C-alpha cells in the first residue's frame, strides 16, 4: 500500500473512537458486576481484577446497552462519542453481519481497566485493505471537505460513520443518512442559531427537500473522473452547495448520481416517482429560453410604455 501521509493519518484516525478516550467503551473485561447488582456501579468494575482475556459481549452491554446510561458525550476533539450501543441497529450493521459480533473483535485492547484506557486505534483499511484504493480516493476528497478544514472537530471516518451502525448506502433509510449530518448540525455546529428549516428557507420547497432528499444531494457536487462514493465525501458549505433547481432537475442533472441517496434505484422508480423526483419543476428550464422570454416581456413593457408616452406627448402638443 502506498498511502500519502495525510491519507495515512486520516485512515489511522478512523478508529473506533469510543475506546480512544476514557469513560467510554465496553466494560469488556469485568470480573463482572455481582449478579445481585444489575446496575453495576463503576466502582464494582474498577475493583475487579484485571482479566485481559476477551470476554463475552454480555459484559460490555451491561453498561453500553443499559437504557439509562448517558448515551454520548462530546470529547475534546469536538466529536460526539457514543456510549450507548443500540443493539437493534448494531445487529443490522455490516460489521455485525460480517460476524464481528463480539465487542473485542474490534476493541481488543484497553477495555480491561476502568476508566477504559487507550486502545490501539483501528483504521478502516486495517481490515478493508482490499479496498485501499477506494479508501484513498475517499480520503482525498474528505481532505477537501469543509469538515476536514474545521478547526473545531478532529475528523475521521467514524465521526460520521459510526462503526456500530455502518450500513451499505442502499440499505440505509433516508433518516439514517441524514442522521449522520443532523447529529451535529441540528444544534452543536449551527452558528446561525436558526433551525434547519429556517436555514433552508430561501428554497421554494424547503420542507419537501429536507424530508425527501439526502443532505449531500446539495452539499456535494459530482466531479469528473471521481467516483460517486468519493466525491460524496467532499462536503461543501452553503456557499458551494447547489442552489439552482436545474442542478438536479434537468435530464442530465446531478440527481442521477444521488438516487441512491434519496432511497431509490432509478430502474425501480414508478412514473409518478420519476415525476416527483426527477422530472420536477425547473427540470424543463432552458436558461437561454428563460432569458429570451424575459427579454420579450421586457420589450413589450418598454415598448407599450414608450409608445404611450409619445402618444401623450403628441396629444399635448396638438391641443396647444
Amino acid at each position, binding site marked *: 500500500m502506498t498511502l500519502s501521509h495525510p491519507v495515512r493519518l486520516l485512515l489511522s484516525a478512523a478508529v473506533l473512537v469510543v475506546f480512544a478516550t476514557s469513560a467510554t467503551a465496553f466494560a469488556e473485561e469485568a470480573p463482572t458486576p455481582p449478579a445481585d447488582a444489575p446496575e453495576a456501579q463503576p466502582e464494582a468494575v474498577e475493583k475487579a481484577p484485571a482479566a485481559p482475556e476477551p470476554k463475552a459481549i454480555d459484559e460490555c452491554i451491561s453498561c453500553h446497552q443499559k437504557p439509562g446510561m448517558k448515551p454520548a458525550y462530546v470529547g475534546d476533539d469536538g466529536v460526539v462519542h457514543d456510549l450507548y450501543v443500540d443493539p437493534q441497529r448494531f445487529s443490522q450493521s455490516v460489521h455485525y453481519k460480517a460476524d464481528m459480533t463480539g465487542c473485542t473483535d474490534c476493541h481488543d485492547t484497553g477495555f480491561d481497566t476502568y476508566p477504559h484506557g487507550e486502545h490501539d486505534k483501528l483504521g478502516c483499511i486495517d481490515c478493508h485493505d482490499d479496498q485501499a484504493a477506494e479508501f484513498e480516493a475517499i480520503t482525498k476528497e474528505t481532505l477537501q471537505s469543509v469538515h476536514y478544514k474545521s478547526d473545531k472537530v478532529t475528523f475521521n471516518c467514524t465521526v460520521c460513520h459510526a462503526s456500530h451502525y455502518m450500513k451499505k448506502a442502499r440499505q440505509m433509510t433516508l433518516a439514517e443518512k441524514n442522521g449522520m449530518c443532523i447529529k451535529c448540525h441540528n444544534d452543536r455546529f449551527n452558528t446561525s442559531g436558526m433551525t434547519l428549516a429556517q436555514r433552508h428557507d*430561501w*428554497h*421554494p*420547497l424547503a420542507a419537501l427537500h429536507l424530508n425527501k432528499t439526502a443532505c449531500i444531494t446539495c452539499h456535494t457536487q459530482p466531479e469528473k473522473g471521481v467516483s460517486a462514493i468519493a466525491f460524496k465525501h467532499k462536503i461543501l458549505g452553503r456557499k458551494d452547495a447547489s*442552489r*439552482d*433547481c436545474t442542478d438536479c432537475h434537468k*435530464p442530465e442533472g446531478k440527481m442521477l448520481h444521488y438516487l441512491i441517496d434519496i432511497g431509490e434505484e432509478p430502474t425501480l422508480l414508478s*412514473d*409518478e416517482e*420519476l*415525476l416527483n423526483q*426527477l*422530472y420536477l*419543476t*425547473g*427540470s*424543463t*428550464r*432552458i436558461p437561454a*429560453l*428563460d432569458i*429570451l*422570454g424575459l427579454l*420579450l*416581456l421586457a420589450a*413589450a*413593457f418598454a*415598448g*407599450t410604455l414608450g*409608445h*404611450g408616452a*409619445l*402618444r401623450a406627448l*403628441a*396629444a399635448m402638443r*396638438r391641443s396647444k
Partner: protein
Amino acid sequence: MSTEKRFYLVTVIERLWHWIHAACIVLLVLTGFNIHFAETFNIFGSFETAVTAHNIIGLVVTFDFALWFAYTLFTRRYSFYVPIKDDMPAGMIKQAMFYMLGIFQGKPHPFPVTPKRKFNPLQKWTYVGIMFGLIPLMIVTGLYLYFMVTGVVAFNGMHAYVLSIIHYIGAIFAGFFLFVHVYLATTGHTPLTLFATMIHGYHDHEEEH
C-alpha cells in the same frame, strides 16, 4: 358631438367570457411565473399554492374557452374573425403605419369599428392566432401535463419535457399579448373608452375621431 352613432357591439356572454378570461390569464401568467421561476418569484407564498391555483384556474379557462367557442360558433359571430380583403397585407400595413405615425398626428383609425367590423386587420389576425392557435395550444399542452401528473395518462418524462417547453413559450407569448392588449385598449377616443365598451357593450362611434 353627437352620440347617436352608438351601437351594441359586445354581447353579455362575450363580456362575461372576456372578463373571466382576463382575470384567469393574468393569474395564470403570475402563477406560471411563480412555478417556472420558483426560487426568485414566489409571490403566492408557496410553490404548492401556485401549482394548485394554476391547475384550478387552467381548468376554469378551459371551460371558459369552450363557452366562447360554442357561443361564437352557434351565434355565427365567428364572422368577425373571418379575414376579408381589408385584412390582406395592404390593410395590415395601413394599420401598422397608423400605429407608427397616424396615431401621433391625431389621425382617425383607418378601419373604424362598425357593427360588421369589430377588428382592424392586425387585430383580427392577432385574435385569430390567439383564439384559434395560442389558447387551444396552451389548453392542450396544459391539460396533457395535468393528466400526466394526475395519472390519467401514463407519465412520460420526454413528453412532459417537450410539452412544458412548448407551454412555457406559449406563456411568454400570452404575457406579451397581455401587455400589448391592455395598452392598445387605451387607444380609443379617450384612454378608457374601449374599457367601457367591454363593460356596457356599446361602441361609441365618435371614438373614431
